[in-house]
């Protein structure tokens, strides 16, 4: 097993899928000679050539829309949105087109596109290079939204997304790119989209999270373990459609649930997770369902002390878990 960074897992998955299937190609802004502004497509232009690693004009609706057309034809485009914040001009193509292709044609056509985008904050990206955007797509049947937390999950899920017969929005936490490292098997594998994953077993409190926050949750859990609190950590991995059974099971297991997301609190995907719990396992609960999230302000400011105020930190998570455990 090799140790890869989160972004290396992205690059590896792309490379392997492009080798495996001629129909897989990449399109986006600066993905070619530059290898992407985060270098996620580093080396791919050199290996696969200009036609399969396409620098597009600066126009996200076209990146999505041209990709969608190619996917309808039978190609396997992987479109990159340079920052998740810049997916907004492509919303019509993603929601009205990609997500509804199969349904509206009564299964005659389908649209196997993967749209990758780096999201999330803590990188001095300010209001427009830090946002979490999953909630705006997490009410769109026909679409799947994958948000992995570890290099292992990144690689297995990105490969699965590319092979999926339907459109997948694949969101990568940009701060995790170089911060998060992990073991990745040398042999070929994929992971199932739509399945949450228990990242740590525990009995006192259940934490449900995804993306970068998941790591904070795990760190807090490790620390609290030493104080004698046993924390169960569920990684959603796919935030739409949610793995309802896994959520029910994890919540019921301890009866005390903390939901953590970096997104603004109101209207985040954690609202739906809480609703699922309130609907399915209310009587198993021993405490109100708690949520930790970003504040309801447009996004995180640039100045470091302001950005810090926005982000959830380890201490906050720790004390929220402790409070729940002692509830």
């Amino acid at each position, binding site marked *: 097993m090799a140790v890869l960074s989160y972004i290396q897992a992205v690059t590896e998955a792309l490379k392997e899928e492009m080798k495996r299937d001629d129909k897989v190609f990449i399109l986006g802004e600066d993905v070619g000679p530059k290898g992407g502004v985060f270098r996620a497509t580093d080396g791919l232009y050199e290996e696969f050539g200009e036609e399969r690693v396409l620098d597009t004009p600066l126009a996200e609706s076209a990146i999505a829309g041209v990709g969608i057309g190619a996917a309808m034809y039978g190609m396997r485009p992987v479109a990159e949105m340079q920052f998740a914040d810049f997916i907004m001009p492509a919303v019509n193509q993603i929601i009205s087109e990609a997500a509804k292709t*199969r349904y509206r044609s009564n299964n*005659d056509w389908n649209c196997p596109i993967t749209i990758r985008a780096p999201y999330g904050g803590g990188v001095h990206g300010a209001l427009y290079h830090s946002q979490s955007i999953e909630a705006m797509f997490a009410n769109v049947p026909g679409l799947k939204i994958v948000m992995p937390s570890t290099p292992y999950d990144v690689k297995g899920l990105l490969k699965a997304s590319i092979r999926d017969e339907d459109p997948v929005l694949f969101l990568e936490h940009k701060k995790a790119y170089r911060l998060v490292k992990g073991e990745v098997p040398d042999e070929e594998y994929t992971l199932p989209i739509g399945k949450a994953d228990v990242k740590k077993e525990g009995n006192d409190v259940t934490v449900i999270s995804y993306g970068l926050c998941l790591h904070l949750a795990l760190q807090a859990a490790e620390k609290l373990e030493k104080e004698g609190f046993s924390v169960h950590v569920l990684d959603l991995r796919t935030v739409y459609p949610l793995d309802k059974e896994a959520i029910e099971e994890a919540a019921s297991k301890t009866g005390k649930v903390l939901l953590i997301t970096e997104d603004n609190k109101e209207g985040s995907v954690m609202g739906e997770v809480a609703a699922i719990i309130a609907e399915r396992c209310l009587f198993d609960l021993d405490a109100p369902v708690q949520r930790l999230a970003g504040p309801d302000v447009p996004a995180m400011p640039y100045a470091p002390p302001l950005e810090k105020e926005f982000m959830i930190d380890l201490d906050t998570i720790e004390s929220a878990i402790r409070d729940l455990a002692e509830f």
Partner: protein
Amino acid sequence: MAVKHEQLGLSDEDVLLMYEKMLLARKIDERLWLLNRAGKIPFVVSCQGQEAAQVGAAMALDTEIDYVLPYYRDVGIVLSFGMTCEELMLFSFARAGDPNSGGRQMPGHFGQKKNRIVTSSSPVTTQVPHAVGIALAAKMEKKDFVTLVTFGEGSSNQGDFHEGLNFAGVHNLPVIFLCENNQYAISVPLDKQLACERVSDRAAGYGMPGITVDGNDPLAVYEAVKQAADRARDGEGPSLIETTFYRFTPHSSDDDDSTYRSKEEVEEAKKNDPLRTFASYLKDAQILTEENENAMNKKITEVIDEATDAAEQAPYADPSSIYKYVYAEKDGDN
């Protein structure tokens, strides 16, 4: 006078077929309005006035290999690409047998994979980048099919028009952008939609040729699309073709056009009805005779009658089917 089609390499049979398709499109459309007024179908959106451009364009393509992304008025195009009258009726009656959507979509939202008619939605102009993507696939896969995409002149103001044409220009893709300019976008006339004189004036901004042709003349449209298709197949890239004519009906069966245009204006425009003018051309050339015209009318009426009956009697999809095909069905259904 009637040598024009010969100069284009079209036989007398070709142009008769051209006329027949135009007429079939028109007659289907007229029937749909009757059915709508009789309360049998909830909605019609028409091709009337645009048949020459649609059929002329489609006949300039290779309907065996080319891809087409029609917009909601393109009855003439989908008929030419192999959709049958009965299938169109099933669509209008929203029956399970509708090949476009199984009764899920409003009429006019065409799509039929076996005929390379690409599935479409309601938000206008989204199909333009799709066509570019299919053309990109043709280039990558070294296939020599051409992709044709259509849209109204109002729709050419959407961002997706700009982004799509520019992408095709930069990557020199085999795609034809065909604007069907019928002078109105619902109630809004041309001069409130565009500040340029012609939609084709925009082509220069994407490094591709742009021309405007008389959309009431199917031969003029045929010629323009044929040239563009040849260019595309020869690796010379995309073209923008604007066809001009007049929308004879209200925007749709939900629209009352008397609030924004006069009856006189409509009547005046009907003097250039392409069915009338092309029929004269064919009659002058003695290609269309009283005899074959009658036979043609009779045949079309029969086809439409049968299709209407069949569609009316056909079942709706089962309500429980609405849960299907959100995603690929696990058990191999796709």
